[in-house]
């Protein structure tokens, strides 16, 4: 997650290296799957179903409509949680970046909650909403909101002074500076925060559903785990990975739209 911002490629060797990395990745993935398949067939243990069995189970689950039903519930919670996280996160983060007093007042708590294990708040939400989607949505927000706040506030704070000074010298009001200078300039970092938030929200969704265990994909994982049904657990995990990757892709496309005007080097993707 944090690493994505750190990964720097050697200059000059960009395109050829990327394409060979991708094909090597396919090789690695295929090799892993074959080892899994052959190993599982050789050992023939209940606890390690071969890959083909997991895929068969996945198809079966998909055809019976179980995946679609759970997925619909899960994604609904996820969408609501993300919506709240983004609006609250961007507003609070901008306030912290814009007013130093707000930053001092909230900064320590936001940073503490960003690093603390979010699931530990589940019992508290449980006491508010009980076995309800409210608990899960609240947990998703706890997972996702703080990284948006921190990234947004850092983004607003790290705007080059030259930009704002230039605007002020042309008689821009503080409000104009905020909306026309600060917000666009902060957009790349804000979107990087959004990308991290999506990944964390998916984790919060699954963990919340596992903790409360009445709805969605998380319940499917817990209940099939209890029945020692490893194939189902793995099939559901494949769905979760697919959902996460598709969501990341969507965020990336949105990011392109928002930051497409920037020169290549200023983008964080």
């Amino acid at each position: 997650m944090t690493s994505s911002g750190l990964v720097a490629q050697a200059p000059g060797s960009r395109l050829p290296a990327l394409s060979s990395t991708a094909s090597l990745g396919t090789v690695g993935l295929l090799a892993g799957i074959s080892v899994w398949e052959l190993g599982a067939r050789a050992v023939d243990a209940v606890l390690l179903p071969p890959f083909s069995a997991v895929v068969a189970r996945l198809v079966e689950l998909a055809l019976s409509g179980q995946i679609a039903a759970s997925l619909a519930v899960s994604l609904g919670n996820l969408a609501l949680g993300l919506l709240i996280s983004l609006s609250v996160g961007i507003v609070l983060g901008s306030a912290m970046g814009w007013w130093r007093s707000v930053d001092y007042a909230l900064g320590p708590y936001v940073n503490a909650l960003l690093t603390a294990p979010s699931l530990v708040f589940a019992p508290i939400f449980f006491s508010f909403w009980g076995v309800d989607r409210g608990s899960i949505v609240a947990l998703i927000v706890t997972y996702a909101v703080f990284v948006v706040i921190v990234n947004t506030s850092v983004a607003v704070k790290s705007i080059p002074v030259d930009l704002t000074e230039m605007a002020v010298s042309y008689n821009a009001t503080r409000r104009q500076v905020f909306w026309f200078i600060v917000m666009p300039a902060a957009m790349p970092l804000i979107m990087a925060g959004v990308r991290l938030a999506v990944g964390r929200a998916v984790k919060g969704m699954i963990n919340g559903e596992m903790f409360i265990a009445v709805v969605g994909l998380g319940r499917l994982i817990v209940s099939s785990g209890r029945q020692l049904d490893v194939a189902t657990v793995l099939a559901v995990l494949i769905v979760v990975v697919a959902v996460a990757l598709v969501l990341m892709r969507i965020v990336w496309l949105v990011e392109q739209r928002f930051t497409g005007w920037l020169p290549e080097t200023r983008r964080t993707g």
Partner: protein
Amino acid sequence: MTGGGRALAGGRRPPIHVPRPPQADKMRRHWEWRRITHPLIALALFGGAWELFARQSDSLLIPSFGETLASLVGLVISPALWYALAISNLALLLGFGLSLVTGIPLGFAIGRYRVLEGLVNPYLTIFLTVPIAGFIPLLLITLGIGLEARVAIVYMFAIVVLVANCRAGVRQVDPLLIEMARGFGASELQIWRRILLPASVPATMAGVRVSLGHAVTGMVVVELLLVAVGIGRLILELQSQFNASGVYASVVVVVVEAVLLISIAEWVGRRAAPWSRYAGA
């Protein structure tokens, strides 16, 4: 998590010798009293609002701010809390230690050798996106519900981001430096010792810090979700006794532990690499 350690660092930064972009100076602020008074005011406002809300709703499940504070004091002086923390942290210690020993070399190797990176990359992507908690049922089936399973889960939570950061640390080294060293006849071992290892210290330490956070998460997640021991068990027991203020207080304890551990990791990181400010981590 850019700037995640800003407030935790307590405002003291080691002298920085590398030239930095002008806007960075705006981020490094001088000490002000507001740094202490403002958080306290915020806490007082929050506590006051909570107290009012709790009295208004008058629910058995929602304790007041004062009750929670009283419970917190009670917990801290009770041996049960420390016993629970000891059980939980044993798994944390073993799992995190194991991930340091294996994850750092693995990340370095992936960062240095492109073929290896290509082969491992898809798995890294998958494990960075998938909620690790989903694997807990599988690990319990294979390893039982003992210490081994908890250690394994902490390990899985911690290692992924550590590998990713160590890889990035080695990868961001300027290839010209390596070529130059090679041109002067440096061996692979010398390149590692003189260039790659020192250059990757900041990213590695940032990885250690983030992965410690993940390890604490793993410790709590497994105890809350499937194996009720240690601090997770304490929380669930208090919850089933409708001891709401106890639940809230133990949540505070977990958050404080996580923040403390990460601050320690951050301090160690700054000692190990005083020239860096964890750029980008």
